[in-house]
């Protein structure tokens, strides 16, 4: 471990830093190496980002940026590849419970246009299929299925449908229309229980009717059977319990990472690395064991910094809660460049960060977790949880980052903003971040800076 002062550095500075990390004896994984090498893969956005300078962050970035190679290696070694679409943390838990399976998240292709600065043809391939820019950037996934440049075509595709966004449902249907069969599983809109109806409290605190949990459990049973058939092995209760136990180890690690990062007096880890860390937890970035190792390394570094009282930014930096993931990673840097500090997030999948109950039959536990997805319930419920998290982490303002073209973003932002203002009296700003925000950078900077200034003005 190298114990230099935490700083954010650019790609050029990482060259020198990489040599220092090597000299300090940091043991890199097989996918390690200097960050700059990813430019050769077309990951041009790396030139514009600011990175944490720790060895743990280096591992995080290298792990993220080598996922495609990992998937192709898995295919070459005969592993079964499962594409878990519109699935935030459920099917991967089941899939990785089986041996010889690699599950991944094809939706993650939505960052391709950003990372490759629109130089890849994923979006133009989607355009050619009539799925144009009026859709959410996840349309890049459709292009990735067409051009085959990013991930191998999965052996098994699953997709949740029902209470999901229209963009994704429409795009997944187009994927199936291209000749890739999908196991569709129904996730119903989570509703409040009727008077006198049997109900359960879900992970995260929402309440749902028992009958809805039963529906999801049956649907996940279909997925379970499809997985078992695909692999040729039974997905037993014992295997599922082991899969859930592993998922909970990852989630506990991430929970501690978030808690420390959001509450430490000095920020120990910047927003960008935290965003990536959260994303790893929902689908394991095609390697479950390595996900835990990378997150554990980050947590170790964060603990060290907290103990030493060192970190990033002004300790008095306004504490900002962020809602929704951004299509352009650079936006997370921008928040910090205008003087803010990330103190809480809701990237559409808080349920996938909650521990999965272990005192229940595994399929019941997974069904409850899936139904706790903030996106399958009302925006009011999502806003309530956001408010609880804002209070928990002591955030002083909220950024709602709309996803361009996303069906849910037309209405839910105003609901969330309304609740935050009404219940907490905190300032809120809504922004929209496209896959390449360069043309809007000054506008976004102004809006974020205004929010930060508003918080500063209100401080005694």
């Amino acid at each position, binding site marked *: 471990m190298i114990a230099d002062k935490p700083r954010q550095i650019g790609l050029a500075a990482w060259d020198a830093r990489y040599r220092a990390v090597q000299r300090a004896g940091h043991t890199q994984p097989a996918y390690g190496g200097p960050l700059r090498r990813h430019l050769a893969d077309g990951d041009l956005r790396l030139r514009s980002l600011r990175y944490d300078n720790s060895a743990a962050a280096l591992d995080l970035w290298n792990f993220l940026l080598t996922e495609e190679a990992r998937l192709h290696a898995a295919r070459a070694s005969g592993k079964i590849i499962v594409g878990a679409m519109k699935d935030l943390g459920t099917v991967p838990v089941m899939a990785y419970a089986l041996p010889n399976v690699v599950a991944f998240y094809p939706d993650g292709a939505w960052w391709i246009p950003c990372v490759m600065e629109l130089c890849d043809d994923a979006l133009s391939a989607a355009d050619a*299929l*009539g*799925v144009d820019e*009026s*859709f959410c950037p996840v349309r890049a996934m459709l292009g990735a299925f067409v051009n085959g440049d990013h991930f191998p075509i999965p052996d098994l595709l699953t*997709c949740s*449908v*029902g*209470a*999901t*966004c*229209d*963009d994704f*449902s*429409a*795009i*997944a*249907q*187009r994927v*199936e*229309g291209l000749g890739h069969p*999908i196991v*569709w*599983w*129904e996730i*119903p*809109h989570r*509703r409040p229980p*009727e008077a006198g109806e049997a109900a359960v409290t879900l992970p995260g605190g929402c309440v749902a009717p028992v*009958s809805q949990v039963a*529906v999801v459990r*049956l*649907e996940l049973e*279909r997925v379970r059977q499809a997985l078992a058939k695909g692999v040729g092995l039974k997905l037993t209760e014992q295997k599922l319990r082991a899969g859930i136990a592993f998922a909970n180890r990852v989630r506990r690690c991430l929970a501690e990472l978030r808690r420390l990062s959001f509450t430490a007096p000095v920020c120990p880890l910047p927003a960008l690395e935290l965003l990536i860390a959260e994303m790893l937890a929902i689908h394991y970035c095609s390697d479950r064991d390595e996900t835990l190792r990378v997150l554990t390394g980050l947590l170790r570094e964060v603990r060290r910094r907290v103990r030493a009282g060192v970190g990033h930014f002004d300790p008095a930096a306004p504490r900002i809660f962020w809602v929704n993931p951004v299509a352009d990673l650079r936006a997370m840097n921008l928040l910090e460049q205008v003087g803010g500090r990330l103190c809480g997030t809701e990237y559409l999948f808080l349920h996938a960060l909650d521990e999965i109950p272990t005192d229940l039959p595994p399929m019941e536990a997974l069904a409850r977790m899936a139904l706790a997805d903030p996106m399958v319930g*009302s*925006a*009011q419920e999502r806003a309530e949880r956001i408010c609880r998290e804002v209070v928990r982490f002591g955030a002083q303002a909220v950024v709602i980052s709309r996803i361009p073209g996303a*069906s*849910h*973003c*037309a*209405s*839910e932002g105003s*609901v969330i903003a309304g609740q935050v203002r009404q219940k907490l009296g905190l300032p809120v700003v809504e922004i929209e971040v496209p896959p390449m925000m360069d043309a809007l950078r000054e506008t976004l900077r102004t809006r974020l800076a205004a929010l930060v200034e508003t918080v500063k003005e209100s401080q005694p």
Partner: protein
Amino acid sequence: MRREHRANRDIVYSSPCVPPEWIAAHGLRPCRLIPGRATAESPIPATSGICPFLRAFVNEACHRRNTAGVVLVTVCDQMRRAPDLLAATRQTPFHLFNLPSTWQTPAARRIYRTELERLGAFLVACGGTTPSRAELVHALTTAERQRDAIHAAPLGPSDGIPVALLGGPLLAHDREMVRLIAACGGRVVLDGTEQGVRAQPARFRPARTQRDPLGELTRAYFETIPDVFQRPNTRLYEWLLQHVAVTGVRGVVLLRQLWCDKWHAEVQRLREALAGVPLLDLDLDGNGVTPRYRTRLQAFLEGLQ
């Protein structure tokens, strides 16, 4: 008797997956609302990204007189989220009907049937009465007779180039498109919109209706109406290709509401599936049939001559 007159008896809905027989059997009046231009600004103001049909439907339903309740159906993400926008104006009771997107499994059918029962509870809360089996059977047979009478009526003129309409829900003034097509030399012989023949339920089977009327409602509405939101949406394509062949349609006019991803994403696939039958894709912005539609329709129909 439970059929006494009440001031507010109308149950307003828009989705063809809501069986009006079920509402009528509860002693309430089913009102399938085809909204006009969205003139009311509340509870949903004009907002970028909001479906014009959703806005017009919700705003008109909320300002309509004699409404006992509004039924919203989860056919799309925006309709599913409409209750969020109604939260501030809960003057009119509303019910969110959870319509499954999957349809090939027994579980999906069970969900639909359970949702009918839940809708029944809502109807009772709106002043209706739980029907006996005999009352439900009567409602089913009456509704079927009425549907038969309505669909015997022709759609438009008897000459002109045969075209089909396809798409989701239309506002009242969007129906002007039928007249415009006729004016341009066409003739609508197949209505595949959400308010047309595509969205009609299957005929009830008499013996099954007597034995299990709720089960028959489920079969007729859930298991047969093809729609774009279903996963997979193969039934829609099967229906379309079969009816295009039978009716001798020479062109298809797709009418989709602006921001409707589910229809929008299918445009190119529909073109490929229709193989040789041209498709004109028109997005509707809630402002009615404006001159731009006339120009495009004229060109389209000229091309078909």
